[in-house]
């Protein structure tokens, strides 16, 4: 079986402001996201060979995309896969370019939820119909995930207050990250006290445990990996795209334990295998995951092997998933704070990963990624002069130890993405970054190198001045 690894690259992305976009129509958001992506990729609309549109309930058919963008009779397919809709649109576009059916494809996700007049999600009778009966549950989406929280607390011996504080820290973290993301739905910081004391939506989940219901759109331009550098110097390469769809048997099979999501486990495992990841906790630098509810993010941390079973609360408490932590998660605020226009969310997650990898995440640039990128840059810089043939200047003299260390981080930059219903998620992979001490020592080496170089340059200047 062939793999999609290293065959596809993302060369442009766009994302609208998420939120209650009263003044933007679905078409407005489609156009804004698509043209930002065109511009970012440096392409013209006519360069698009095929398109995939992800939307959950806003409208039907590919014409929904072709009409506002005036696409030129190219193939357009509407994709719907619940909360993984956007991720799946990207997956389909990536497969198309990987197989050579077209050179450049557009994946665009959009949702217009706030024209409905409801504060919640639209008609979930759609879900009920999937069970082929009208005599089914009457619960809301938060109710469904709250059942996971109830069981998680019970299984791992967390009292209701203790459990609410654990998941509350996830909401606090995501609001902090979102406050640094200009396009996020919300920009307010919150405290654990606020989360715990908020009105109950579906016990034990309160208002701040639930994601925003938002309008928004996000888009990606993908091309074959071998063409990517023609468009930009820093494309993001796809290492894996995996999706797992289960038979929804948790509702009827007592074997299901309510403290994990089998689809997430399976898709994660498949993606790691495709990308060559052996130790996700150590090897993954950054993750965007589907935090529709705070409990969902907690469980995903275990399903994706970031934390051992039952241990995610310890990692949450230790700040492991914060911007400054060992594995930053949902650096843009996630669904919680960035918002959840269903069909757009998967592509919005990819947008954040893309910006982080390009070092364009501004105030919320993840420390681990920044450090790795800096380390790579340092290693390039430290070796530059030595490798430049014909350079009249004498080679500088960094410590050989520092140079070797710097070289370590230069190799193998792995980046990948995958998604699945009900969770789409995306991340990239690089060699593990240096520890803080190693990094400081590298900087010291670099400083010494620069000082040496300054001395060399000063000397050269004086020699030239003294010269005839």
């Amino acid at each position, binding site marked *: 079986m062939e793999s999609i690894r290293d065959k596809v690259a993302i060369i442009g992305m766009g994302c609208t402001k998420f939120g209650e976009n009263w003044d933007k129509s679905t078409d407005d958001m489609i156009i804004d996201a698509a043209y930002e992506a065109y511009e970012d990729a440096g392409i013209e609309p006519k360069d698009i060979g095929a398109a995939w549109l992800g939307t959950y309930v806003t409208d039907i058919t590919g014409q929904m995309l072709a009409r506002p963008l005036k696409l030129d009779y190219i193939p357009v397919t509407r994709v719907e896969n619940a909360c993984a809709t956007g991720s799946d649109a990207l997956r389909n576009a990536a497969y198309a370019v990987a197989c050579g059916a077209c050179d450049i494809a557009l994946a665009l996700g959009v949702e217009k939820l706030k024209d*409905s*007049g*409801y*504060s*919640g*999600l*639209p*008609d*979930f*009778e759609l879900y009920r119909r999937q*069970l*082929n*009966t*009208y*005599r*089914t*549950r*009457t*619960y*809301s*989406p*938060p*109710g*469904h995930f*709250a*059942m*996971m*929280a*109830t*069981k998680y607390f*019970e299984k791992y011996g967390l009292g209701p207050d203790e459990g609410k504080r654990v998941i509350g820290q996830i909401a606090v973290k995501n609001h902090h990250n979102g406050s640094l993301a200009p396009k996020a739905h919300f920009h307010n910081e919150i405290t654990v006290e606020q989360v715990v004391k908020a*009105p*109950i*939506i*579906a*016990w*034990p*989940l309160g208002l701040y445990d639930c994601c925003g219901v938002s309008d928004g759109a996000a888009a990606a331009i993908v091309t074959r990996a071998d063409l990517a550098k023609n468009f930009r110097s820093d494309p993001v390469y796809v290492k894996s795209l995996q999706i797992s769809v289960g*038979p929804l*048997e948790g*509702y*009827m*099979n*007592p074997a*299901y334990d*309510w403290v994990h999501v089998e689809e997430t486990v399976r898709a994660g495992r498949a993606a790691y295998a495709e990308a060559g990841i052996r130790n996700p906790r150590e090897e993954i630098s950054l993750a965007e995951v589907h935090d529709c509810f705070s409990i969902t993010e907690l469980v995903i941390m275990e399903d994706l092997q970031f934390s051992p079973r039952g241990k995610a609360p310890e990692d949450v408490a230790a700040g492991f998933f914060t911007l400054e932590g060992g594995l930053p998660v949902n650096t843009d605020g996630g669904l919680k704070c960035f918002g959840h226009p269903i069909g757009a969310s998967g592509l919005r997650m990819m947008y954040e990963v893309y910006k982080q990898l390009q070092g364009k995440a501004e105030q919320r640039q993840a420390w681990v990624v920044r450090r790795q990128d800096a380390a790579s840059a340092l290693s390039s810089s430290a070796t530059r002069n030595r490798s430049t043939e014909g350079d009249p200047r004498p080679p500088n003299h960094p410590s050989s130890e520092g140079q070797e260390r710097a070289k370590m981080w230069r190799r193998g930059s792995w980046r990948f993405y995958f998604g699945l219903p009900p969770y789409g998620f995306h991340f990239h992979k690089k060699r593990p970054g240096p520890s803080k001490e190693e990094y400081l020592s590298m900087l010291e080496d670099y400083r010494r190198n620069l000082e040496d170089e300054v001395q060399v340059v000063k000397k050269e200047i004086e020699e030239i001045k003294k010269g005839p």
Partner: protein
Amino acid sequence: MTGIISYGGYIPLYRLSRAEIAKAWGVNAPQGEKAVASHDEDSLTMSVAAARNCLEGVDPKSIGALYFASTTSPYREKQTAATIAAVLGMDREAFTADFSGSLRAGTNAIKAALDAVNSESASSVLVCAAECRLGMPNGSNEMSFGDAAAAVLIGNAGVGATIDATYTVSDEIIDVYRSDRDAFVHSWESRFVRDYGHGRVLPEAVSATLKKCDLSPKDFSKTVLCAPDSRQLAAVARRLGFDLQTQVQDSFYAQIGDTGTAQPLVSLAAALENSKAGDKVLLASYGNGADVIVMSVGEEIERIKPKRTIKGYLETKLMIPSYQKYLRWRGLVPIEPPATAPMEQPSPVALWRDNASGLTLHGVKCRKCGTAQYPAQRVCMVCSARDQFDDYSFAERTGTIATFSHDNLGISADPPNTIVAVDFPEGGRITCDMTDRDPEEVRIGLPVEMTFRQLRYIGGFYTYWWKCRPLREPK
């Protein structure tokens, strides 16, 4: 030798204190409480509950007919008896009929059942009587009406109480009535109703019966006289010469109120629970006439005592905390709809296809791997065998809560909507709503039983399904 071969009552869990109603309207508080059907109960679901209690150990396929009696059928046109028969899993060739029009509908149905068995048109007939009447807010009927149901199985094999004689009289009078244009029951001036309605006709009918059978009041160990309240019951009993302390069956006016069509059958169930072989019981109901039934209790009475007694139902209750909640449950005040998408109208076609799963709570059990599953599948969720299943009913099984949530966004007239996953020890899991629960008591591992309830009313018809509830047992 035709008579009662099985019986069982049902009283909803909830009670509303009359003082609570009085408080809302600023009037003097009468004594007692009334039984109130939960927001998801009606005469149909309460009949199912009573019938299931009555039919413990009886094969529903062996029953020849089902009569539903009530003045509060959920439908004016659409037969409730047919729905109940389907829920109980009765043979489709069993004769079904709805009896209505007066509070005598229950005893009308018993008389018709007796005739059917005696004429051998049916081997046994299940009679379900249920009531869920509305009095106008701030009126005396609102104070007195209560909700309940009871069922009796009439047959001629294994009879616990033989029906020796029946007497009936009809009587045209406008005393208590509800026209086809009204949601509420109305009564003419109370003294006219008391003295020239119930107070005239019921004693007349009982006296005529005694004369016809050559019996006197002292021949009866228990007399079940239906009456709108305890005072009227006492007055009529005294006038007929029954001893209030020893002979007259309480109609539970203080505990559950006047339960209308259900009252004669609920009171009869209570009387039979405390009867022994050799006892004679008289049952008399009123409503545009009177029906009187004379019964002799036999040896089988001990065997047919239901698992859930009226005494047990009276002892297990939850108080409705406020009159507003009662108004909401009965739909008596317009409520701002939730800010969520309105429910789509269900498809009667899909509902019809789904009758086995939806109405009888039948799932399947895999012939290859033995896994029980609900709803019915065509491909086994464990071994993937296709179409190799046996029918498997979950209705009478108890399970435990695997997990739950109290969902404030879920649509319910009794928020929060408690949603649970129920695991059954013999296999299978059903994710459903929980009803008749105190949210504080809900926990993982709590034992629950299944109960048939109204799920939705959209577009002019009701959808019913099963929910779970805590085991209803006296504490």
